């Protein structure tokens, strides 16, 4: 498969001048040597703390910012210097309310943006109707954006980002400000774009979202790459353990012994809680042991039974903390 995005030892520094009379210069290394590739048709996630450098990476990819050093290529072209070659094949969706014309209607906004790509009028109008439908703004198409709610503006941003039918779409926190339903609609749009063969790079602070959507994820901290892989691979880095939590009315030590001796079980912890006695059982990930555990508990009153998979959030927190 083809690499549509290619970063090699990419760096970007910002110079901040502090003070008013006595000027002090300070250099912030926002992106400090990052390398990875994104293949055609992938949904690629960028995760990381506030200030990790995600937006900076995206800005360099969409030709808004020049790299300080290293390679930053989209569709085989340098994003600084060879912008012309691929501009009409990319677009972006940024979260937030900036970036649309409040004094124009939704339709006029999209017309304006379509003209930035020199689209011919008939084609543009068709595309605009399609997009307005896609983001569910059809009945508000001719209302001034001034009167839109935050989520509606955000949906207009999504339509804007798709106006030129881009090959690669860069999304920076696209679901921020959307209600749960709106966020779900967007996730469905993202999946549909993938089936249409588009490539997507997205950042988000919602880990379940990344887990659900992304084929591969890069975790970034302080401008460095901390981990890279499929959501499953990232889980494996942390541990091969899963957890089952069972709350019982009462339990004997013999029963605990029996469970501990089950194949694949690695540890059993006992804790008294308000609701009863909680057993926390850790076992090897691929094993299917819930049946065996239930057998050994026969006759006891089970108040709750919870099979917990390691979430991406657990992984993320561990990796980011470890990289400090």
């Amino acid at each position, binding site marked *: 498969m083809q690499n549509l995005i290619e970063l090699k030892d990419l760096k970007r520094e910002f110079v901040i001048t502090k003070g008013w009379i006595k000027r002090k210069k300070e250099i912030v290394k926002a992106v400090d040597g990052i390398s990875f590739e994104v293949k055609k048709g992938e949904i690629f996630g960028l995760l990381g703390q506030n200030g990790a450098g995600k937006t900076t990476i995206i800005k360099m990819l969409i030709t*808004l910012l020049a790299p300080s050093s290293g390679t930053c290529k989209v569709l085989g072209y340098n994003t600084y210097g060879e912008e012309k070659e691929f501009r009409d094949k990319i677009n972006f969706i940024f979260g937030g309310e*900036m970036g649309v014309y409040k004094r124009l209607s939704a339709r006029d906004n999209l017309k304006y943006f379509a003209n930035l790509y020199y689209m011919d009028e008939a084609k543009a109008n068709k595309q605009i109707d399609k997009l307005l439908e896609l983001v569910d703004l059809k009945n508000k198409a001719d209302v001034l954006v001034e009167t839109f709610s935050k989520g509606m503006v955000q949906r207009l941003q999504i339509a804007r980002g798709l106006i030129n039918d881009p090959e690669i779409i860069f999304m920076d926190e696209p679901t921020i400000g959307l209600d749960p339903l709106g966020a779900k609609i967007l996730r469905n749009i993202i999946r549909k774009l993938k089936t249409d063969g588009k490539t997507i790079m997205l950042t988000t602070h919602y880990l379940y979202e990344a887990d659900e959507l992304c084929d591969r994820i890069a975790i970034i901290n302080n401008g460095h790459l901390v981990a890279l892989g499929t959501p499953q691979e990232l889980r494996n880095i942390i541990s091969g353990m899963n957890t089952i939590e069972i709350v019982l009315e009462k339990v004997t030590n013999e029963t605990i012994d029996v469970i501990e001796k089950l194949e694949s079980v690695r540890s059993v912890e006992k804790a008294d809680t308000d609701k009863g006695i909680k057993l926390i059982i850790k076992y090897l990930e691929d094993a299917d042991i819930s049946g065996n555990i239930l057998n050994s508990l026969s006759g006891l009153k089970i108040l709750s039974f919870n099979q917990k998979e390691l979430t991406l959030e657990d992984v993320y927190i561990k990796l980011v903390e470890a990289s400090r």
Partner: protein
Amino acid sequence: MKRFINQAWLSFKIRYAAISFEEFLLLESLYPLITLAFYCILAAYSFNTNNLAKWVVGNSFLLCTNICIFALGSAFDEERYTGRIRSIIISPVSKLLIVLEKGFFPAIISVITVFFGFMIGSLIFNVDFTSINLWLFLFVIIVGMFSMTGFSLFLSSFGLITDSMHFILNLVANILIIFSGANFPITQLPQTLQVISKIIPLTRSIESANMLFGGYDTYKFVWLLLEEMLVGIIFYVISYFVIKIAEKTAKKNATLELF
């Protein structure tokens, strides 16, 4: 071309949709007229003259500077403040075109403003314009506008790299008032500063418009207009390159976005 007009119209709506037609008239014509009256009265007292033709002409030209400088000059600046510059920068559109689109309708309006500013000013200050060829006068205005547009394009590129556009635009507007010969004869300026008058737009259009009132030398008149056009063209060409350079610089120094 149709796309250009469409985009220009949308840009115009963006700029003015918030105000009603009446407010628009007030803003775009009453305010300039008052400015014009102010300078003419000032001139009448300080130069102790009854022949105000020169000031009416000069100041009606200045009416267009504000519209032109601020509509075109602040094009990128405005987009930066609203976070819309991203969409423009990453798209294939010519950045020069964006500024021109934004300035197109304001420029037409300012031609009309100059023309009517001149008529109304003349009526108020008893300037006899029946003897001059109004079509020729209109043509001079259009030539003046042309070079002003080139000049404002040049200014607009700075909007990509500096946060002080308001200051720059106001400064330039005042430079034009002083150095274009609208209010003070250029010959009264120190020799070195007269150079500024030579390189800015409007100076020559104002001079040639004034020539319409006295008996004039056709050769010199045409020559002045050609020079004015040349000034405009030079600024267009410079802008073409300066905008590209400014775009690159902005990407290097991260000044495209303010947040």
